[in-house]
């Protein structure tokens, strides 16, 4: 059974998605429980896979028993195992949150099969992470993206449909550019398997086709990842998506696209190509710095809380690519640690914001005056998440930014450290604005609130199933911020493997 885990983690959500879709023909409404069970199973499988990989090295599964390079191979190594745990954890926690939130926000509107789409999204995400075949990655990328477009389109406001349509156009262009790059690689080498490509490419590094293939896939995956100039779809899409979809989009979909970019850059085009043949380090460090600062600046300008969090994601993806651009072991470790940290913290921030919207129907930040007194648990979660995003010590955000700064200094690029600092300061400004309004302002319109209302026994906090999931995620960020050696050891092994040290 354990040899089949790489494929099971993809197939079970896929099958459950179809089962849920068929269930809708009956009157039984067990969709939420089925999706919780499926994501929990995937989470356990991914933990077991990570354990196997840490003990005995990379695990692989051959679809249909065909040997690579003729068949498709699923390869789980340190980075894949790490990403799989992150993705399935966020998927599981979000599916627990989804019960009440979906009933309130989407309900039976237009017959939308929400849980079926959600399971498809999770299956696609897991598929991108485990696959070892370039075209298989395109297929799962499109499965993920199509589910994401549809899920964005069921948002609360009318504008969500236009946002979903924009996302569809831009995302499809990105995936087509990636497919074109796969085609260019195929006509030069004749293979689609990632490991086999890595062996055949060094002979033709100076070929123009390979250079164009590299440029095309970088452009395509940058669109999917919302890397700064190509981010225009993200504030609308993530800000207008339903409260239960935004966490998965921001924490998983764009991170898995960043993972795919890192995977193709380091496993297919080996570090010898991207660092020696092309000046990737210089170009990407400039682009990532612009992304970090630009993302934070556009987040400063937002007045809607979910749009602000979405623009913040643009900046955080800049951190990930900054680690790649630094290029040494510490920088890559910081990059992977930031994938972990951003996923957990951004998901919990979006879930907490969703709880605020569920209770108060307020989207604008300036209207959230004094909400900290009415909903203390949710705002506490949001506060700790905001501190983690800024990079206060004892959170995972600090660990990742520390590693990035140390890596930059080790590589001799000292000018990156002020960029990281400036980005952290900008994060502090726009998160601090929310915290100040929520905790320190009073809501004059509704009179004296706080202790008086709670003494009357009037429950103003949301129910447990909406409070606990973001709190679990954010406490994980504190736990792993203190016991940082646990994710760091995995990230260091992953960085070493990608740089070719083993």
């Amino acid at each position, binding site marked *: 059974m354990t040899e089949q885990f790489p494929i099971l983690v993809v197939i079970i959500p896929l099958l459950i998605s179809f089962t849920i879709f068929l269930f809708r023909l009956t009157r039984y409404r067990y969709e939420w429980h089925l999706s919780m069970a499926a994501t929990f199973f995937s989470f356990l499988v991914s933990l077991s896979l990570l354990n196997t990989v840490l003990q005995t090295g990379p695990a692989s599964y051959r679809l249909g028993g065909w040997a690579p390079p003729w068949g498709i191979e699923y390869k789980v190594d340190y980075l894949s195992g790490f990403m799989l745990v992150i993705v399935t954890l966020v998927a599981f926690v979000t599916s627990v949150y989804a019960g009440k939130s979906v009933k309130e926000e989407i309900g039976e509107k237009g017959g939308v099969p929400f849980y079926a789409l959600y399971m498809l999204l999770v299956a696609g995400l897991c598929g991108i992470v485990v696959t070892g075949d370039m075209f298989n990655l395109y297929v799962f990328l*499109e499965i993920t993206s199509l589910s994401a477009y549809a899920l964005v*389109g069921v948002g609360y406001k009318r504008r969500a449909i236009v946002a979903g*349509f924009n996302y569809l*156009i831009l995302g499809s262009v990105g995936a087509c550019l990636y497919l074109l790059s796969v*085609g260019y690689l*195929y006509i030069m080498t004749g293979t689609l398997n990632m490991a086999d490509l890595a062996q055949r490419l060094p002979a033709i590094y100076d070929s123009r086709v390979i250079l164009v293939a590299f440029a095309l896939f970088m452009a395509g995956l940058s669109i999917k990842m919302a890397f700064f100039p190509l981010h225009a779809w993200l504030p609308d899409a993530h800000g207008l998506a339903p409260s239960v979809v935004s966490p998965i989009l921001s924490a998983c979909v764009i991170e898995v696209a960043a993972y795919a970019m890192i995977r193709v850059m380091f496993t297919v085009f080996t570090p010898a190509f991207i660092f020696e043949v092309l000046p990737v380090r210089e170009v990407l460090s400039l682009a990532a710095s612009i992304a970090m600062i630009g993302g934070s600046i556009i987040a400063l300008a937002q007045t809607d809380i979910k749009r602000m969090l979405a623009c913040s994601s643009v900046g955080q993806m800049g951190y990930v690519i900054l680690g790649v651009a630094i290029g040494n072991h510490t920088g890559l470790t910081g990059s992977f640690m930031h994938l972990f940290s951003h996923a957990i913290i951004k998901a919990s921030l979006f879930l907490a914001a969703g709880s605020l919207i569920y209770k108060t129907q307020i989207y604008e930040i300036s209207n959230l005056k004094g909400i900290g007194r009415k909903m203390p648990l949710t705002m506490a979660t949001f506060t700790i998440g905001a501190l983690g995003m800024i990079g206060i010590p004892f959170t995972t955000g600090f660990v990742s930014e520390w590693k990035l700064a140390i890596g930059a200094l080790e590589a001799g690029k000292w000018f990156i450290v002020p960029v990281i600092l400036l980005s952290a300061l900008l994060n502090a400004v726009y998160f601090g604005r929310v915290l100040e309004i929520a905790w320190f302002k009073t809501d004059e319109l509704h009179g004296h609130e706080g202790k008086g209302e709670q003494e009357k026994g009037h429950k103003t906090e949301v129910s447990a199933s909406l409070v606990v999931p973001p709190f679990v995620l954010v406490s994980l960020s504190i736990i792993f911020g203190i016991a940082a050696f646990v994710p760091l050891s995995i990230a260091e092994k992953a960085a070493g493997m990608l740089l070719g040290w083993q």
Partner: protein
Amino acid sequence: MEFIISKYNYWVYIALMMIGFYAMIGKKNLVKKIVGLNIFQTSIILYFISTAAKKGATIPIIAHGNGEAIHAVHAAQYVNPLPHVLMLTAIVVMVSTFGVALAFIIRIHRAYGTLEEDEILAKEE
């Protein structure tokens, strides 16, 4: 000149891709944008299929009679079937994307009453 003529399949696919791209950017009607996306994706399919063709090659089906032993074949005599297989998958993806896009267009029309991009943006101001 020989450079252009001998690689005419690549020039055709690039031209189609740019036509599709222009339609996505330049046209205001949402349905025309979808058609542009479709042309863009079809051009990539054309590129893959054109790389599979070989001069004087035949269909990649090897006929075995009953009980005949499996024998080696000259790959140069058969058209490369792998890009065709990949493009079958890509066509399925293209059709699914088209379906989702049309569903979006139906919803947009229901919500806004129009399918012109500038009118939709004006309604959102």
